């Protein structure tokens, strides 16, 4: 992949290259053509669609990558000056993951995507007034008071579609998700097995699931909009609350992005500490994920075991930074405080303990005939489908898609440690289950190698009191516990970002659930949800 081949492929595009990153700008009418050519050229992974309000124009940025050459990142940009009824062609038929992303952009910016079969709002209620991420959004609470009645079911079920890309006539087709004859059961928003407030509407035929329709937004807190009025150190606190189970990792990503923008030298010691904390977070998150999956299958004891061992990590966090769940540890330029004297000792005590406990987990649950029977042959996700849906992280790796950012683009101290990217090939529920336990083992290996070698020196670089990011776009991806977590910052040289976008690794996982669940039983729906291990506040942001 180089500049010349891209230019000959897309003669109408303006391309600029920066290392492994390509920025393509195409006119709105060529968008679909460009997208399909790129897809044919090997860019099979659409990791996010970022909506933009440039002030005078509205734009969309498609973040593309390729499973064959994951180092290459490609931003496909387009703009329209029509702010009243902005329209673009949908790319749903090229990448399955575009479905939710386009709905999100539609929700936040009011941009319609022609030919997308489902143009409902994604997070906000269907009767919400205004498009919150536009710069001219009226945030007057009287316009959108706290609703006291439930959402209109007809609104929730109707799928508005913009069918024809025609300048003159707006043609909307309304279809419904479910027929009148279907037996529809609500799972959520308040349900013990949805791991948060996800609302799944499921059409049943006896015990067999025919169709599933996820509803998001029950914990949509508008973090991206809020961040536009916050300084960078303030934003860091919100990132912990996105995917709270891998909070330190999210925070790490924002720190790295800002440091990249400031071209700041971060001390090696800080890199090591951050890496160790990230890996501890990953272990804690996987333990909880494992426990919740077991609980979803009815084994509450396994869940309590997972939580019990998670407490050991929480102890280390508490001693290091005072927080249990919200570590608030990384800051721009390093970490908040130096590690306590007991830090290494505690981790070294934790590693053999965790190895012993992993064996116990296998004894308790992995080998259990009922558990094996439940997971056997259910929820097949092929590698191609995983890439098309953008299912990064353990779920993608269980299908054989090598997508570990720690290997692709080693950040912090990952290059210093020797570890294996756990890959499995079957893509079944059992693979997604066992891969988490295997990843815990790999994380322990990383910890083992790094803990003793933390270099001496400063734990943080000096930063200015007011951090102003130079004008430009900054991007950083890290490997969260559930997949690739990306931060995109568009700065106009101010102390606030002009636009900040977080890629939620969990959002695509719900799409995976939607894809693999038809034909399985109700009990499998819950188990599959557990095996995908999504975190809802991360999706809703």
């Amino acid at each position: 992949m180089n500049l010349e081949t891209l230019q000959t492929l897309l003669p109408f595009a303006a391309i600029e290259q920066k290392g492994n990153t390509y920025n393509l700008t195409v006119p709105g009418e060529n968008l679909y053509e460009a997208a399909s050519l790129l897809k044919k050229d090997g860019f099979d992974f659409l990791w996010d669609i970022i909506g933009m309000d440039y002030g005078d124009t509205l734009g969309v940025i498609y973040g593309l990558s390729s499973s064959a050459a994951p180092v290459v990142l490609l931003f496909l940009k387009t703009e329209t000056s029509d702010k009243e009824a902005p329209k673009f062609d949908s790319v749903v038929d090229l990448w399955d993951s575009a479905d939710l992303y386009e709905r999100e952009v539609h929700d936040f910016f009011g941009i319609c995507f022609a030919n997308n079969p489902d143009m409902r709002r994604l997070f906000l209620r269907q009767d919400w007034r205004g498009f919150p991420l536009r710069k001219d959004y009226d945030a007057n609470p009287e316009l959108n008071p706290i609703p006291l009645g439930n959402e209109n079911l007809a609104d929730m079920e109707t799928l508005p579609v913009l069918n024809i890309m025609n300048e003159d006539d707006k043609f909307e087709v309304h279809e419904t998700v479910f027929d009148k004859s279907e037996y529809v059961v609500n799972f959520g928003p308040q349900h013990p097995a949805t791991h948060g407030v996800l609302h799944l509407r499921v059409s049943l035929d006896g015990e067999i699931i025919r169709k599933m329709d996820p509803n998001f937004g029950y914990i949509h807190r508008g973090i991206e909009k809020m961040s536009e009025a916050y300084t960078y150190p303030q934003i860091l606190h919100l990132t912990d609350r996105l995917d709270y189970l891998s909070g330190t990792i999210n925070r790490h990503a924002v720190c790295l992005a800002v440091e990249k923008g400031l071209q700041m030298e971060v001390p090696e010691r800080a890199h090591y500490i951050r890496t160790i904390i990230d890996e501890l977070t990953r272990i804690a998150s996987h333990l909880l994920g494992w426990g919740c999956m077991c609980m979803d299958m009815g084994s509450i004891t396994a869940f309590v075991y997972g939580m019990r061992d998670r407490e050991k990590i929480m102890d280390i966090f508490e001693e290091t930074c005072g927080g249990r769940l919200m570590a608030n540890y990384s800051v721009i330029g390093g970490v908040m405080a130096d590690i306590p004297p007991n830090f290494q000792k505690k981790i070294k005590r934790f590693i053999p303990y965790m190895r012993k406990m992993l064996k116990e987990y296998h004894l308790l649950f992995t080998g259990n005939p009922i558990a094996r029977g439940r997971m056997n042959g259910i929820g097949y996700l092929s590698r191609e489908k995983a890439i098309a849906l953008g299912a990064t992280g353990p779920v993608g790796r269980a299908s054989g898609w090598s997508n570990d950012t720690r290997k692709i683009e080693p950040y912090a101290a990952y290059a210093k440690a020797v570890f294996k990217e756990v890959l499995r090939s079957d893509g079944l529920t059992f693979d997604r289950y066992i891969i988490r336990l295997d990843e815990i083992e790999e994380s322990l290996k990383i910890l083992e190698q790094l803990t003793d070698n933390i270099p001496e020196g400063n734990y943080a670089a000096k930063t200015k009191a007011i951090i102003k990011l130079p004008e430009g776009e900054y991007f950083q991806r890290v490997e969260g516990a559930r997949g690739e977590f990306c931060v995109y910052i568009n700065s106009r040289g101010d102390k606030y970002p002009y636009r900040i976008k977080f890629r939620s690794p969990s959002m695509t996982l719900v799409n995976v659930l939607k894809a693999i669940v038809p034909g399985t039983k109700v009990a499998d729906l819950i188990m599959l949800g557990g095996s995908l291990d999504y975190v809802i506040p991360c999706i809703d942001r």
Partner: protein
Amino acid sequence: MFHFKIVTDWIDEFLRTNLGEGWALLIEFILTGFAILALYAVLALILIWAERKVCAFFQCRLGPTRVGPWGLLQSVADMVKILLKEIIHLNHADLRLFRLASFLVIIASLCTFGAIPFDRGLHAVDFNMGVFYLLAISSLGVVGILLAGWSSNSKYTMIGAMRSGAQLISYELSCGLSLLTVVILSGTMQLSQIVEQQADGWFIFKGGVPAIIAFVIYLIAGHAETNRGPFDMPEAESELTAGYHTEYSGIQFGFFYLAEYMNMFIIAAIAATMFLGGWMPLHTPWEGVNTLMDYIPPVIWFFGKTFFCVFLALWVRWSFPRLRIDQLLKLEWKILMPISLLNILFMALWVLYL
């Protein structure tokens, strides 16, 4: 050996001599009724406490400790609270059936409870068809569960009730067949007779291999009948919120709650009676041991065996994940039932030729 027969006989004689036949019977009926109700309630509270403690033990926790010594009064506090909790009347439910359902469940469980022989002379219902009575009356509970699910007018309860119906009716078969194996061995259906026959060795020892198979099958099928994990599909907490009793509140829910625990006790008690000798002490060929065993009162033997079976049930409940509904039915119809049918034949041959 102290038997409660002495006490009950004395009361009976006292009443008969002082009052007429009819009055004595009436008073005895009322007394028995009250005694059974009281025992039922007390046992349920003990079981709830025990489950919470045992569950905590499996999960490296402590369980209730604050209310009363070792948290013994925890379930009493729960009872006080649940008695005074509001009972919600649903708008779109079939109210008559909705109210009836919880009573049906508890009545079925109470009637079964009455047929359990606690000791010689401590036995409320002793038919010559005792085993049939047990099987018939204990399967009434499923009607209550189906009604509860249907009348609540909710989709969760409906799915829970349908699962429950499929599950209970299937596992009733294995339960019945494995009990019939014992009936073949003992040649009687009267529970008191069955216990008396185990004086020279419990059926699980006397019956050899087929009795052991029947015991294991009974434990599995009986456990499934109580709707508890890994067979807790009807209420599958993580799937159907609370299954068939999702819409019940207050004491109506309390009835379901009590019945669930008491069914566990009843299944364990039947297993103890039919296979482990009921209240009969452990008798071996050695005379010395037998006299020693006879010193332990039969009631303690009975409760000891029963709570051992209850503990087994709790052990399974807190360490296994839940089955899926198709696997559950497959286990019954393709594995347990054929085995029990063959086992009956095996037992018949065993009785004939050994």
